[in-house]
Each structure stands twice: as C-alpha cells, then as structure tokens.
C-alpha cells in the first residue's frame, strides 16, 4: 500500500473546496496525521527509559515498609560490600525541601527523620547494573520507631497528635477553607424546597502505561541535564535548582515524550532529584526507572472526597442557594492539594445558575501516598455530587433531568456568584445533541426493568488563570526561527504527553504561514533551548501555547509580508499565504514560493526570528482564594449513557455512551475525537472499578497500612472488552480567548461520565449508589434494601462535623459586589491562606 500523505485521504481528506486559495483554512479544522505519529508507530519515539549514555549506571530507591515512623538508623554497610555498588544517598544529603506549590514545600528527595507512608523513599543506591542496585537495595537495613497511623479523614480530624507534618491549618488538617458568596440564608428562604445529599468519591490513580523514568547526565564543569518523563519540566527545573543548590542556568531539564500522564507526572519527584544528585556525585550518567509498584506509591491521583450538598430549589427547578462541603483525603504530602481543595468547590457555578453559594472544605493528611491532580483535578468529585443531586431533585420535582439543566444554564459572557468570568458556553447544544442522539425523550423511564439511561454534564478549564507561583511572566512562550531553506523551527517549552500538543503547535504555525507540517521542525520541552511553557496540566496547552504560537507566527508572517510586498510591489494586505506560496490575491500567478519568500525576507531584514507569548486575562475575583477557578475559557460537555443491569446480581454493563463536547474550535478533529473517547474511557473506569484503596496488614505482620493492590492486574481498569459504543459529537462554540476559538478537550469529557452512570442505574433499577466506584455489589446491596422496603440507596450517611469558623464573605456581582471579600481582615476568618494569599499580596505590592 502506498504510504498515505501527511493529510488523510478518503473520507477524512481535506475537502477540495479548502484547496481554493485566499481565505480557506489550510490545516486548522481538518484531520491531519499527528506530527509525531510516524515515530510512535515505528518505535522511534524515545521515552525516558529508552535513553542510555556511555558510562551510565543505575539507581534504585529503598522505600519505607511502615506507614508512619521515625527513622532510627540506616545501615548500608552490607549493601556497600556487594558487587557493583557505587554510592548511596540518604535524606541529609539533600536537606532542602521541595514541592509543587510554594505553600507546601514539604517533601525531601529522601526522607530525613520521618517516613509518612509505605513507599516513602529513604535511601538511593547506585550500582553498575540495575540488577546490582536492586540486590543491594534489599540489603539495606532501616530501623524505624513506629508512630500512630492516620488512615482516614475521620481519623485525621480526630487525631491532632502525632502530626504527620509540623505545618498545617490545624493538627492533621492540612487545609481548611470556608467562603460564602452572597446572602446564603436569603437564598434558602426563597426556596420552595431544600434538598440534601451526602456522597463519596473514592480515590483512584492515573496508571499511565509508562513507568516514570529519569536519566541525569552531568556535563561540562558543574552542569547537568535531566531527561525525565515529566509533564512539567519547568517546575522540575525550579525544584532541582532549589534542592541541588545550583543556579537554574546550570540545570537543563528535557521532558521526554510522556507515555501517558493524566496528571500523574506533574509533580517534581523524589527519584528525579535523587538521580540528579547521584549523577553529580558520581560524575556519570544515572538512570532510574520506577517499577510499577513504585508508580502506585508516587500516585498524586484523585483525592477521595466525601461531600455534602444542601441546595434550595424553586418548584420549577431553579436553584436559589447551595452549601457544599467537601472533605479530601490528601495522603502524606501537600502536592497540589491546596489547589485541589479549592477545586472541589470552584467550578460548581459555571454550568447552572447558582445565585448564592457557600463552600467549606478540609484536606487532611493521612499516611498514604500523596493525592494530587488527576484528569479533572478536584472537580470530578463535586461534579459527581452535583449531577446526581440534580438528578434526584428533578425526579422529586417531576422535571425531566435534561430540562432541569437546560432551564438553568449559565448565560455566556457573564460572571458567576464566585466571580468567575465565563465566555462561550456550548452546553445547550451539547445537551440537545445527546438527548436527541440517545432518544432520551422517548426512552428514559420507559425501558424494560434493568435497562436505563442517565444524563449528566460538566465543564472544565482551558488552563488555570494563574501560574503555580506568583509572577508576571508569560505562561507560555513560542519562538520561531525562519531561514532561506524555508524551514521554520518552532521552540516551545510545552510537553507532549500524548494529547497531541506537538501537532497543535505545528498546525497553528503552518496554518498562519500557509505552509505544510513538514516545513516545520519542533524543539520542545527543553529548559535550556525553549521559552518557558508551564507544562501539560490544567488543559492549558492548546489555548495558551496556541495563542503564543499564533502571535509568533503572525509576527513572522508580517515580516515576510513586508519584504515580499516591497519586492513584488503588491500591497501587504493583498498578500495571501497558502499552499507554500505568498501571492497576490488579485493575481495568484504573481507570487513567490515559501522558500523564495523567506530568502526575500532574510535579505531584507537579516536573520529572521519572532516570539510570541501568552498571559491570561485577569479574573474579576479579588478575594483570597480567587486564584483557583479562573480560566480564559471553559469547555462544556454533556453525556447520556445507557446501562443494562442484572437486577439479581447488580452486575451491569454500559452499553452505549453519547458524548457531546464543546471544544470551541477543533484544531485537529481527529485528535479531539481521541481526547473525547479517552476521557469517556477513563471516566468509565472510575465509575466501574478503579480505586486506590488501602488495607491493614494483620496485627502479627506489622499492622501496617498498605496499598491494597499496587499492580496492574489487581488495580482493575477497563480493557477492550468493557468499552461500550461511543457516539461523540464535536460542538464548536468558539471562544474569543482561544486560538481560532479553541477550548480544551483533554479533561472535560471525563467529568459527566461518573454521575451519568450512577443516574442510569437509577433509571434502570430504581436504586441509588451515591458513591464511586459504583461496584456491582453495591448495586446489589441497594436492590436488597429496596426489596426490604428500606431506602433504596447505598452511600455515606453523614458529613463529619467540622468547625469551619466564619466564612470569608464575598458579595456576588448581582448584589453589587466588587469581587472583594467584606471581612478579609477579620481575625480567625477561615480563608484561602497560602499560595492565593501570596498572590494577592504580590498583587497588592505591584499595585502600590
């Protein structure tokens, strides 16, 4: 078979009409082969563990086997005598702390005096071969003095001593937040009815197929290059500088293409820093590749969240006020947790009109692997809560669950009660598409017993409005180099984790310059060579890097156009860039080929280069905590799922998923489809089976709190056989803040999956499982309750009683607020301290 060209032939081919000159789009909006596609199907893509260097040695970590303990002694003498062993590192070799957020710098590359979970690393060993390092790791003796284990949120709240960390809002409560937008009680007073629900979302993990790997290579005099499977090379760069005490300019971080990330490679990790330190000590390259078991310990996955919603409704389904409380089990370290905490409340307002809103939350430290950002970061849990809550209320009020949503949609270009500015909203069309596609109106509630439909919606950020550490610099930068060859090199710090960001970068540049993808050479994710991009997290890359690329490309086009216009004596605004030519729109035969145009510009201006950068617009919220939630644009999704439940056993199958996603504008539709389908899959896994859970070893075997199943066999995830048919609709409601109107797609479509499945089970057999995963045995249990005439439900009963103090009070836009809190300075007010405070203080500093 003849190899296909860069663009697809057949049905997916570029429509002939698009070949027409002038304004027609060249690439954006047509499905094109991803620029890294060929390397990925030939085995040429080099992931971190594929690298090797002359004289490279191997490193392993010795990890704690107890959940919470003081380190009494470490004995490496036996290991040191073993063949091939070269060196050891322990905690005190790297005393500086690090962590992703400025407010929770609570990690050491290796534990110094305490371990906080089974899997916390204590010793690093380098040896000539990986086998030797492994053997030696078994010979290291660490003596521990056990401390009381904190296993759950309830235990953390009840146990203030021993503290897992010596910093926190109080005891083992890492973070406590309470904020109120508008006169809540007035809202509840206006309601015809008030509904309450308590729900649980169990934790789960990313399970990227690639195990994390790092290779550190010392170079020159005191420089080092660190290749790693990281989604955030820039943040890793900063952490390395801090812990290694080296100027950042001597450290080069190169993010290899990630073999899947999903948020799990967004933190700087112990093994990355230890490998760099080891390489500097030995003066030779050091590689570490984690075992799959260790990947489960790195975790940073979905926080388990217990939540309570209390909402006032008018009889017609309008919400008058909501009080949401969430409790997050954070695991042993801060990670992104402070942001995660706010995220369990921040996006509650961007889908349906919510005039008054109160949000309380705690995040607790427990002796388990740290939780962090997983696809949807902190928002899938309350989204599950809200969408199930709405479904129940709709049923009680006798309103179609689709209508309760359609009738209450947030209007485009408005500001929510918690001061988020939303732009384009394609949610109405999303709901209509899945309702029509699934036959919802005709079929819901009318299918045979055991078969049911469930509906839910969601929304997600197209990038967080603020960077993780306060600064006034761009969140993404792109640099272009053009020369007489016609090749355009694009430099950008963005990181390809499989989502297709390389293809978006090349696609946008090619679009603006009217050239082909093969004319573009990318250099990405290299902190020495590429302008900073903050990383592949919060669905920020297409929008932020895309805008930076657009600006750089437009500037390059301007340069070329000026030179060509002079040479051809054609006014600049008549020049068209298309089909690798620059020509006169009035006389297309008059023009230059792209390389000729570059020669012309290089002759006129000298060496050609342009830059572009992107800083998101400022958000109207001015209260402490307002830093989490703002985004330049919000994506929207709606889904209907169909399930078949066996009423005897509770076993069920998801038969069909209809998913509509408002992506603003699909830069490359085939990759958008991939993100939608991948999100559907991952949401399905969370709803059906995935959970990161723990158990106590028997008393006679240490009683330690251990991961229940740190293996791919036992951590259940969907295979080909569990995947239902998926009908995806791409909805395009362009947002003025997005490049070509584009918004995110990598995370949003995951959000409605879990509640839609729970809602479908209710439609099928009339029972509620108010927790994720919806295990079949829970469905069976709820059916038993139903048969016994009890409430046909399983799920948590109560939210723990926590003193949240006085909330931070922020009047809403409708109340004439100005985005500030009215009681910011009151003592004892529970507010978003930390990063957000720092940001606000920095902000005040610059205003002065």
């Amino acid at each position, binding site marked *: 078979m003849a190899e296909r060209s860069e663009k697809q032939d057949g049905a997916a081919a570029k429509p002939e009409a698009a070949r027409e000159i002038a304004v027609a789009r060249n690439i954006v909006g047509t499905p094109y082969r991803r620029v890294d*596609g060929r390397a990925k*199907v030939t085995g040429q893509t080099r992931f971190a563990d594929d690298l090797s260097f002359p004289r490279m040695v191997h490193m392993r970590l010795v990890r704690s086997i107890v959940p919470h303990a003081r380190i009494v002694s470490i004995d490496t003498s036996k290991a040191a005598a073993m063949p091939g062993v070269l060196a050891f590192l322990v905690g005190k070799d790297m005393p500086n702390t690090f962590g992703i957020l400025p407010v929770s710098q609570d990690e050491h590359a290796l534990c110094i005096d305490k371990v906080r979970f089974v899997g916390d690393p204590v010793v690093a060993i380098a040896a000539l071969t990986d086998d030797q390092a492994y053997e030696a790791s078994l010979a290291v003796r660490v003596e521990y003095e056990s401390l009381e284990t904190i296993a759950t949120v309830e235990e953390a709240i009840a146990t203030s001593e021993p503290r897992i960390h010596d910093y926190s809002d109080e005891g083992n409560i890492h973070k406590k937040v309470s904020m109120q937008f508008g006169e809540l009680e007035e809202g509840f007073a206006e309601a015809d009815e008030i509904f309450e629900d308590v729900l649980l979302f169990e934790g789960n993990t990313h399970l990227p197929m690639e195990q994390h790997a790092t290779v550190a290579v010392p170079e020159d005099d005191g420089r080092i290059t660190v290749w790693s499977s990281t989604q955030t090379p820039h943040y890793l760069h900063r952490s390395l500088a801090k812990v290694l005490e080296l100027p950042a300019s001597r450290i080069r971080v190169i993010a290899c293409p990630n073999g899947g990330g999903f948020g799990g490679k967004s933190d700087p990790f112990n093994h990355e820093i230890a490998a760099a330190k080891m390489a500097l000590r030995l003066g030779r390259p050091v590689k570490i590749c984690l075992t799959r078991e260790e990947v489960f310990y790195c975790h940073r996955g979905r926080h388990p969240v217990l939540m309570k919603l209390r909402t006032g409704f008018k009889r017609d389904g309008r919400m008058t006020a909501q009080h949401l409380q969430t409790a997050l089990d954070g695991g042993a370290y801060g990670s992104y947790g402070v942001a995660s905490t706010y995220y369990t409340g921040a996006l509650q307002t961007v889908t349906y009109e919510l005039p008054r809103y109160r949000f309380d939350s705690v995040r607790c430290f427990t002796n388990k692997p740290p939780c962090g950002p997983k696809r949807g970061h902190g928002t899938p849990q309350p989204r599950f809560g809200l969408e199930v809550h709405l479904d129940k209320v709709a049923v009680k009020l006798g309103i179609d669950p689709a209508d309760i949503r359609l009738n209450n949609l947030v209007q485009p270009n408005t500001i929510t009660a918690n001061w988020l500015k939303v732009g384009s909203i394609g949610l109405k069309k999303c709901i209509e598409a899945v309702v029509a596609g699934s036959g919802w109106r005709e079929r819901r509630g009318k299918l045979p017993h055991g078969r049911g439909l469930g509906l839910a919606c969601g929304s997600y950020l197209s990038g967080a409005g603020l960077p993780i550490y306060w600064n006034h610099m761009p969140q993404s930068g792109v640099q272009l180099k053009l020369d007489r060859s016609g090749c355009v090199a694009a430099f950008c710090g963005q990181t390809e984790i499989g*989502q297709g960001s390389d293809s978006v970068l090349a696609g946008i540049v090619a679009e603006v310059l009217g050239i082909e993808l093969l004319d573009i050479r990318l250099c990405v994710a290299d902190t020495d060579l590429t302008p900073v991009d903050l990383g592949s997290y919060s669905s920020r890359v297409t929008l932020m890097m895309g805008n930076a690329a657009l600006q750089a490309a437009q500037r390059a086009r301007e340069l070329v156009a000026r030179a060509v216009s002079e040479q051809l004596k054609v006014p600049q605004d008549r020049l068209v860039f298309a089909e690798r030519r620059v020509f006169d729109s009035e006389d297309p035969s008059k023009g230059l080929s792209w390389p000729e145009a570059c020669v012309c510009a290089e002759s006129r201006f000298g060496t050609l280069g342009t830059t572009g950068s992107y800083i998101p617009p400022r958000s109207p919220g001015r209260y402490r905590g307002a830093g989490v939630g703002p985004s330049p644009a919000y994506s929207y999704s709606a889904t209907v799922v169909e399930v078949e439940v066996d009423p005897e056993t509770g076993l069920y199958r998801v038969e069909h998923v209809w998913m509509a996603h408002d992506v603003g504008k699909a830069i490359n539709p085939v990759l958008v489809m991939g993100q939608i389908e991948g999100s559907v899959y991952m949401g399905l896994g969370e709803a059906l089976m995935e959970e990161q859970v723990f158990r106590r070893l028997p008393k006679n075997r240490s009683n330690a709190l251990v991961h229940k199943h740190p*293996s*791919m066999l036992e951590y259940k*995830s969907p295979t080909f056989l569990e995947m239902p048919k998926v009908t995806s609709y791409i909805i395009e409601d362009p947002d003025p803040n997005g490049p070509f109107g584009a918004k995110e797609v990598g995370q949003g479509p995951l959000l409605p999956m879990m509640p839609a499945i729970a809602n479908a089970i209710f439609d099928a057999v009339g029972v509620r499982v108010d927790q994720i995963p919806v295990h079949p045995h829970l469905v069976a249990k709820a059916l038993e309750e139903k048969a016994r005439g009890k409430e046909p439900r399983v799920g948590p009963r109560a939210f723990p009683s926590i003193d949240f103090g006085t909330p931070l009070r922020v009047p809403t836009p409708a109340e004439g607020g100005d985005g500030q809190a009215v009681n910011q300075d009151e003592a004892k007010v529970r507010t978003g301290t930390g990063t957000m405070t720092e940001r606000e203080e920095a902000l005040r500093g610059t205003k002065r």
Partner: protein
Amino acid sequence: MSSPVPPGTSVATLRVNGEERTVAFPTHHTLLEVLREELGLTGTKHGCELGECGTCTVLVDGKPVLSCLVLAVEAEGHAVETVEGLQQGNQLHPLQSAFADLGAAQCGYCTPGILMASKALLAENPAASREQIAVALSGNLCRCTGYQKILEAVEWAGRTLCGENAPPARECSFGAPLPEEVQRG
C-alpha cells in the same frame, strides 16, 4: 582465545526481524530486557514487567508473546518480530499508517505491543470483526485512547490488507453528525 562464558551468563544467537545477532547477557534476563538493552531495540516497551499489561508484546514465530515473561535464552532458534521490523524499507505497514492517521497512538507507549498483537491477528484473519479484534487485543491495556481509534485503525488496516481501499467513516475523524433537530435549533 576467548575465555569461557562466566556462570550466570548466556551467549545466544537471536533472530530478530530476520537479522541474526549473537549477544551475551545474564541468563535470567527476559527477552524484553535483551531486546532493549543488548540489542538496542527500545521500540518494545514495558508497563509492568509482570505479564499484566501487554505493553511488551512481540511476535515469536508469528505468535504474540509477552516478552517480559520469556527468557531470552528461550527465544534462541525462534523468529522474533518487534515493532522495528514492521515497516518495509521506508514504507509503513498498513497498521502503522492507520494508527498514525487516526491518532490510534496517542502517547504511543502501548502502541508497539498493540501493533504486534494486531499483526498476528490480521495475519490469521484480515477480515476480523470488531468483536474479534477486541478479544484479540483484550490483554493489551491502553490508558489514552479509549480503544476506539485502535479498533477503527485495525479494521482499516485489515481492509487494506484485503486489497480494499475503504477508509474509515467520516464520523471517526469528525464525530457523529449532529441530530437534525439540534442543527435547526
């Protein structure tokens, strides 16, 4: 004079992608390790090294095997095929083109294993149905794609191998057409 092979080490001649190479390696090392380390064929990936994920799938005498569960010494005398051997010269195999064009490789980490398992399937049955493909690949996990694009790509490649020129439906690349009532709205 060459010295005797030290204990715990093996020397074997492996035939990988039709090319013979003689290598020395620790006897307990798996085919996966020897492919990646001694032969430098890093196209074959690993996700667990315990036989749980399918990422390391290669073909031995045309049959898919988990290279993390096979000792390299056991592969001597057998024909081993890896992702590096799929393309003919500079020409991609139909499976490779289809995966690249449909974005069936997102991060691409599971891709080599899935390509090899698919190759074995299509060699037996190029007209495999979607259900047959799903069953054949059910031992290969992929966390990115939701499996849809992989199914579509394997079907497409199967058709190509049968001599048909029938690209996937427009829906695969652009999504389903919006229901009529929505467009009107």
